[in-house]
């Protein structure tokens, strides 16, 4: 199943609706990385609220997305990890090191806004003209 990717301002939102195969995940990764450049996005949000299992391949793909997007100039947030999923992940040692996380979509958007603010304050980011 293909994951819809929505553009919302400067951000891309990928909302996973059901369990994904490894191929679906790879496809999501490629689509997101390609679109970060096409839409000159500053942030990527991957919403995993609907997932009740997260295997090592899924976690690695999410981490790869975050690192690749950063290389293309966008910050990534994973949102909506379920408590049970989080517990299972840490027990398996899958901790998404170096990747930002937030409670839900709203928090994820707030986080990206804050990051953008920080970049402007540091004077090293792009200037927001919107």
């Amino acid at each position, binding site marked *: 199943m293909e994951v819809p990717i929505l553009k919302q301002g400067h951000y891309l939102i990928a909302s996973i609706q059901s369990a994904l195969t490894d191929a679906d995940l790879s496809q999501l990764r490629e689509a997101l990385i390609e679109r970060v450049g096409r839409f000159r996005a500053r942030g990527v949000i991957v919403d995993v609220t609907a997932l009740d299992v997260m295997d090592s391949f899924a976690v690695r793909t999410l981490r790869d997305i975050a690192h690749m997007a950063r290389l293309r100039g966008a910050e990534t947030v994973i949102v909506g*990890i379920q408590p049970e999923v*989080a*517990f299972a992940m840490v027990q398996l040692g899958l901790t998404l090191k170096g990747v930002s*996380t937030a*409670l839900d979509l709203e928090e994820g958007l707030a986080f990206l806004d804050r990051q953008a603010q920080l970049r402007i304050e540091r004077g090293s980011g792009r200037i927001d003209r919107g």
Partner: protein
Amino acid sequence: MATKGKDPLPPPPDPQALSESTAALLRELVAHLRQNRTQLREEWARRITRAQLLTAMTEEEIFAEATSVYDNYVEALETGTFEALQAYARNLSERIIPRGVETHEVVGIVLLLRDVLARSLFGKYHEDFDKLNRILDAYEPAANRIANTVAVGFVQERERIIRQQQEAIRELSTPVLQVRERLLILPIIGVIDPQRARQLTEQLLRAIRTNRAKVVVIDITGVAAMDSNVANHLVQTVEASRLLGATVIVTGLSPEIAQTLVTIGVDLSEMATVGDLQGGIEEAERLLGYKVVPEEDLAPKA
């Protein structure tokens, strides 16, 4: 394995062992014990006092308990069934455990009774050595089984109480408290075992979601000791909370715990730690953008 064991306790007696003659001997034995009930009971109570067992109880109480134990004992010998005795042992344990009676005392008094009764048998049959032997053959397995039943009953009752208390402690000691909008506090008191660590983490994660918490302060002032297992549980809790988008601050690491953790080389570099709960809450407020100012500083300047 077609035979079904009815009794969960020590292996049931071999049915053949209770052959006609053994049964007859036991009957004779029981009659003897009934006949000398008063005298043997008194002798037993005397020996309990002399051995300084059951010091938590008064002499009258000891005598009263001795009487009912004696009667139950004889009954178990007579019927060869131990259910009544088991129930009695449980009931007795329930009454005497809260008064501080120890396992060795309970086992001690039952063994004393066994000895008192054996002595009386020696006295009665000392002229007929052959008969004495046969009587003892019938008596000893039954007596040992009785001692076993009482001791096991006592220990089981103890274990039941311990389990009950553990559960009570577990339920009592894991509150997740909200102190400000989006700020939770989790004070941990007592021993953290894997089961409790799991429960704590699950409860915290659920609370983070329902309260939409951004910062969690885990206070471990009440945790007496920590080993690498517990530390790893703590690290897991912190990481799981981060996956839900919450920052965790750990406070109240005692000097001993700090030394242990550094000595055993647990890596806590990923974890934000602050000295005490107050500092932790202040740091959390800073992260959340709160600023707590005394009222007089807010008063308009004249």
